[in-house]
């Protein structure tokens, strides 16, 4: 038997092939049905663990949908429906996303979520955050890509070693390497809390890719915790390896040639943040369920520490207390760049190079202590702490002070509305 003979034998076995016409509409219908089922199953999830400190942990929904039914604008032009909501119709994000998609492994998909009420607007600026699933693992992992204007101080930029271990914090590099390769500056490393980052910069733009390396079970999936034997243990699943993320990073960096560098700048005037503070105050009062009195200064007025006028680097913060002794502390701060570290000594909090956060607040004693935070545009961060000396009586996690942390997303939205792109001095 020769090779051709074997092929002939294969061909002969096909003589019983059913003579059924190909009807693509049937496959389209099955695809649509599967898509609808996936949406029903994946209603929630996608939580970004933003901060952990003693008793407090806060999570924000990070919800995205992939293959939405496209809507078409009145003029007939696509309105961004071909992109995940995290991209939308933003032309800068679309350029970035096209590059991301072209480089992601073929078996990686954006997790689709069904509830329109959970689909927040895209993040401000040249940044995209999505939740991905690899294969049919039933687990998801966070993935983010941010693009900003190139630094002009690369000669002195040492993210792997400077500012060095941040005293009192644990969110540090577990490993990190930096250097130039063929004219492109690069850095890569793994961080505590199971996340990794790769960066690259050419003469015009810098790209930062972050992803979580410990996926979590998606709602409706059969995925279980890590080894299936220890209740409560964290799940594991496939995410991306470094080489795959570097491929995404390089693709995005190449795509930045299509972008105007001014579109890679974002930020908020601290004065605008102060201007919206009455709304922040009101949101907090609603969340706590009591009037908040400013501990320092006139009622409702935050303190401002403007450290760099050109880039609007600095902090806006306030301390409040209720008649029942509940204390509320809220901080907003803005870094020069996303790749910069900025620590707030007063709350022992740092935003390190990746934009992730480290919180290390007081232990909380015998009372209740909730704290957490989130990003406000590419350069801004919010941190909120709600404490009481009283031990809570309710077992309902959504009640009391924990419920007050639900205001976090609303506050971030109010502050993020002040972020502009491009930012003149970004």
């Amino acid at each position: 038997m020769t090779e051709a003979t074997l092929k002939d034998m294969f061909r002969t076995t096909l003589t019983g092939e059913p003579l059924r016409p190909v009807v693509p509409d049937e496959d389209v219908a099955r695809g649509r049905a599967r898509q609808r089922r996936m949406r029903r199953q994946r209603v929630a999830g996608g939580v970004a663990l933003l901060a952990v400190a003693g008793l407090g942990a806060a999570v924000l929904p990070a919800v995205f949908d992939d293959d939405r039914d496209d809507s078409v604008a009145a003029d007939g032009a696509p309105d961004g429906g071909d992109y995940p909501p995290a991209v939308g119709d933003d032309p800068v994000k679309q350029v970035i996303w096209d590059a991301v998609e072209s480089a992601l492994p073929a078996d990686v998909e954006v997790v689709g979520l069904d509830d329109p009420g959970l689909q927040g607007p895209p993040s401000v600026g040249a940044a995209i955050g999505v939740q991905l699933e690899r294969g049919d693992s039933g687990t998801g992992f966070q993935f983010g890509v941010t693009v900003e204007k190139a630094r002009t101080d690369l000669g002195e930029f040492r993210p792997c070693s400077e500012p060095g271990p941040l005293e009192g914090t644990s969110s540090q590099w577990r490993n990190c390497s930096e250097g130039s390769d063929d004219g492109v500056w690069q850095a890569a490393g793994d961080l505590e809390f199971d996340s990794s980052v790769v960066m690259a910069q050419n003469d015009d733009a810098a790209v930062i890719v972050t992803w979580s390396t410990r996926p979590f079970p998606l709602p409706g999936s059969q995925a279980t915790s890590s080894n299936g034997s220890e209740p409560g243990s964290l799940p594991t699943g496939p995410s991306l390896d470094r080489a795959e993320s570097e491929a995404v990073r390089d693709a995005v960096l190449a795509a930045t040639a299509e972008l105007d560098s001014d579109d890679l700048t974002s930020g908020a005037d601290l004065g605008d943040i102060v201007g919206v503070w009455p709304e922040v105050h009101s949101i907090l009062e609603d969340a706590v369920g009591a009037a908040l009195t400013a501990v320092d200064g006139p009622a409702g007025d935050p303190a401002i520490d403007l450290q760099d006028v050109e880039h609007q680097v600095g902090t806006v913060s306030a301390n409040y207390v209720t008649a029942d002794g509940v204390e509320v502390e809220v901080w907003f701060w803005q870094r020069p760049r996303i790749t910069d570290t900025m620590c707030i000594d007063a709350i022992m909090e740092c935003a390190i190079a990746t934009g992730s956060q480290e919180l290390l607040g007081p232990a909380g004693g015998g009372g209740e202590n909730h704290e957490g935070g989130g990003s406000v545009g590419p350069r801004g961060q919010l941190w909120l702490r709600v404490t009481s000396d009283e031990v809570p009586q309710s077992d309902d996690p959504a009640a009391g002070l924990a419920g007050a942390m639900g205001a976090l997303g609303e506050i971030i939205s109010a502050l993020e509305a002040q972020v502009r792109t491009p930012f003149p001095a970004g």
Partner: protein
Amino acid sequence: MSAIDEASYREFVSVRRRGLLRTAYLLTGDWHAAEDLVQDTLTKLYLSWRRVRRREDAPSYARRTMLNAYVDSTRRPWRREYAVAAVPDRIGGGDPADGGDPDTRTRLMTALAGVPPKQRAVLVLRFWEDLSVEQVAELLDCSTGNVKSQTARGLERLRAVLGPAQLASIREVR
């Protein structure tokens, strides 16, 4: 998914579906199982179509998806087993040049049924789809050496069932 996406998806299905079904049949040995496999493959392809289409690798993606689904299905306890219509009287006794032998189909499918799934996939990809060792290695995410060894073992299994006389000339040629 936009109407434009679905149009290109329909076009892909129109052109490629029959080929996928034939390969699926050679993998599964059963037309119903093959249809299930193709439907599952094309459904997954639909969900990924936007990205797959942009990368212009839809045929490769579809083939890879189908292979993964096939190998995965063979690991499940409820997988559909290939059953021959009748147990052949003779195994390995036919004329190798007679591709039209009515027993050929039964004998070959019986032989293939005895080949482990991955070896079977390698044989089908190489000798039916005419893919190179390198292409098969990429599809199955393994080394070229692994593909060659799987090919040799798969052919050996066929040889054991179909008979040494007609299989004497089967060898690793690529």
